[in-house]
């Protein structure tokens, strides 16, 4: 964990992969009690290697949007392109951390992290698993089963599982929600570290405005009914960012104002 500090400032070369072009006219859920428009007029361009955070109230379609990017939802009006190719289903070049940890209860922690690595040789696989378990600070739990872990620990294993696949696009749905403040800050730093090393595109959903401003290049503010993008704010602060900094707080305030403006409207 300590090694995280050193490289944080190293500038990254511009990655060429992981450009997302999102143009969703409408996403409807049709149920027995009628239909519900979860997303409406979502138009967003994410540059390769960009870190985007999505904030917005409960039920405004953040998870739905992430699931579309993952390729798990394919029934909607519009289209989403990754590097110019339409996303038609899941692919190993996109990794996802769900809102729930979704670990497989019959596998140990290390087997769960290795789940998507079946194409690697056993030696490569175990090296990777150890690396990412170290990263989330759970190496000593590698032989435990998910039911023996706390919620926050399970979530960290799920993060390790997604990272181990080294995806070009990493989708994270409130990944740090169940962590204590200290672990959360540590995991945020680790995630930035991984992002800078791998130059992947990251889309992270959070309810925590401070987290969004700390991590993101762009903060997407969504509003509900129907879920739509209210505004996109750029965070032009160099990293590592200072959470108590005046500029930081100004942007934080701006994001909050966007959220409140809708709530009060």
């Amino acid at each position: 964990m300590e090694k995280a500090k050193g490289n944080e400032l190293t500038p990254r070369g511009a990655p060429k992969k992981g450009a997302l072009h999102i143009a969703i006219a409408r996403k409807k859920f049709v149920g027995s009690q009628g239909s519900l428009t979860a997303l409406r007029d979502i138009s967003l361009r994410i540059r390769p290697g960009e870190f985007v955070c999505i904030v917005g109230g409960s039920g405004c379609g953040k998870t739905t949007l992430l699931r579309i990017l993952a390729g798990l939802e394919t029934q909607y009006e519009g289209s989403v392109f990754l590097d110019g190719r339409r996303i038609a289903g899941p692919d190993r070049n996109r990794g996802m951390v769900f809102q729930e940890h979704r670990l497989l209860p019959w596998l140990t922690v290390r087997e769960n992290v290795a789940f998507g690595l079946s194409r690697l040789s056993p030696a490569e696989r175990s090296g990777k698993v150890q690396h990412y378990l170290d990263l989330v600070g759970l190496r000593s739990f590698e032989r435990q089963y998910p039911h023996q872990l706390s919620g926050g620990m399970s979530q960290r294993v799920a993060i390790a599982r997604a990272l181990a696949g080294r995806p070009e696009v990493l989708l994270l749905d409130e990944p740090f929600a169940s962590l204590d403040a200290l672990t959360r800050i540590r995991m945020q730093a680790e995630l930035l570290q991984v992002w800078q090393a791998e130059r992947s595109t990251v889309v992270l959903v959070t309810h925590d405005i401070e987290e969004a401003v700390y991590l993101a290049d762009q903060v997407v503010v969504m509003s509900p009914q129907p879920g739509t993008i209210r505004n996109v704010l750029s965070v032009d602060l160099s990293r590592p960012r200072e959470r108590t900094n005046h500029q930081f707080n100004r942007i934080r305030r701006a994001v909050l104002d966007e959220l409140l403006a809708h709530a009060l409207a």
Partner: protein
Amino acid sequence: MITAQQDHWLPWKADAAPTLDSRAPAKKSSVNLPDALVGGIVPLAVLFVWEVLARLEMLPPNWLPAPTVVAKTIYEMAAAGDLWKHVGITAARVALGFLLGASGGTLLGALTGYFPVARKLLDPLLQSLRSVPSIAWVPLFLLWLGIEESSKIALISLGAFFPVYLSLSVAMRHVDPKLLEVGQLYRLSSFEMVGRLILPAVLPEYIVGLRSGLGLAWMFVVAAELLGASRGIGYLMVDGQMTGRAAIILGSVLLFAVCGKTTDWMMSAAGAKLLGHRAR
């Protein structure tokens, strides 16, 4: 890092733990052991009264022989070697019937559990067959397969089939879709989906199905052997009835109980081993 913290966090805990540990089993046994004893009081009393009444010849010995007489009968048959022949043939019938029935149940359960089309085609038929009391098939089996082994095996297989089929089919249909999405995300082939997600997910329910299938196999071997056999524990019972020796009938009941319990215990131990340390 976190384990280390837990180990050395509270130094006094190291002292506290043994006292807690040594107290816990004592407390447990002070509750459980008498429970087991209490549960034994009535059966032992019954055995005792039964023995005394039989000794006093207040019970007709050809109707209800003393427990010691039953034990002696079993012992004598075991010593003469007859017993093992009968137990062996019954166990073999159960094993073969269970193997066939459970295999069929596994095959059709997996088919209907995985392919909705197969379920729509086969499940209604199988469900309606299930509602027929299995013994009702006996005359047909006898007509088709004769009085020899085949008809017995068929009946036992039928008994073992349904619990296995049902448990697997239902469990496969109810695997948590959220876990299946993880497989989708990693682009598992359908083959991998079954092997790496669906089978491990349904294993606990499947083992329960196998256990009840085995239980029913024992139930049906009794029926099959009572209906006509020249060997087996069921034959012993019929023989005991024909020759008016209640001790043999009672001894056979006891044998069935012991055999059934033993195989169930073996199956559940194998299941526990297979499930390992996972939850549930």
